[in-house]
């Protein structure tokens, strides 16, 4: 699964994207965020307030309880500030 990061989530983690092997017990966006947060200091910083971090599954907005299913790409990012 490809994971992409944007804005300060990207800066804190220190990379734009990575490919991961998803553990079987990680089934939702929230579970993926928690699993990533345990990978190191930058990840922990990025997900220190998980309610603030938004996610998209295959380029559609997702919720914490959204199932990852057969997703090819999951992205994590701050609340959007375009327009």
């Amino acid at each position: 699964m490809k994971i992409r990061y944007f804005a300060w989530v990207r800066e804190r983690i220190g990379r734009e994207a990575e490919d991961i092997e998803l553990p079987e017990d990680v089934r939702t966006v929230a579970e993926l965020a928690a699993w990533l947060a345990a990978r190191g200091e930058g990840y922990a910083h990025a997900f220190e307030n998980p309610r603030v971090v938004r996610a998209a599954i295959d380029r559609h907005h997702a919720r914490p309880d959204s199932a990852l299913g057969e997703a090819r790409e999951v992205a994590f990012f701050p609340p959007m500030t375009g327009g």
Partner: protein
Amino acid sequence: MFTVRIQAEDFDASAEAAALARGRTDIGAVVTFAGLCRADDTPGAAPLNALTLEHYPGMAEEEIGRLMEDARARWPLAGATVIHRHGRLVPGDNIVLVVTASAHRTAAFEAAEFLMDWLKTRAPFWKQEERGEAQSWIEAKDADDAAAERWS
């Protein structure tokens, strides 16, 4: 015609509005909204030198396209154009353009406002500001969420 463009280049708001109505006789109203980079004057803060817009390529186009579909389901639109820029922009630069066309003004006005309100909270763009030597990410505003929610 319904068009979404994400680009680093500038746009010409009046040319885009004219292009939307060109050759058509069923359009009675064209609403054009342009959002510009403002020289922010927050008291006590260093002046804003620039904004840098990061985006999620692919999803940005798709999400705005989905918002456009929602707008078409609500209002009888004859056409719409949304252009959103990315990259480094300085005060006075264009950031975003929404043009809506319809037979009558109400649909065009409301659809333009709907698109802007939802674009601000759902289109995957993030603004970073430069003030003096410092760079920081702009925080999302509750007021923008409230503006979008009033349509649901």
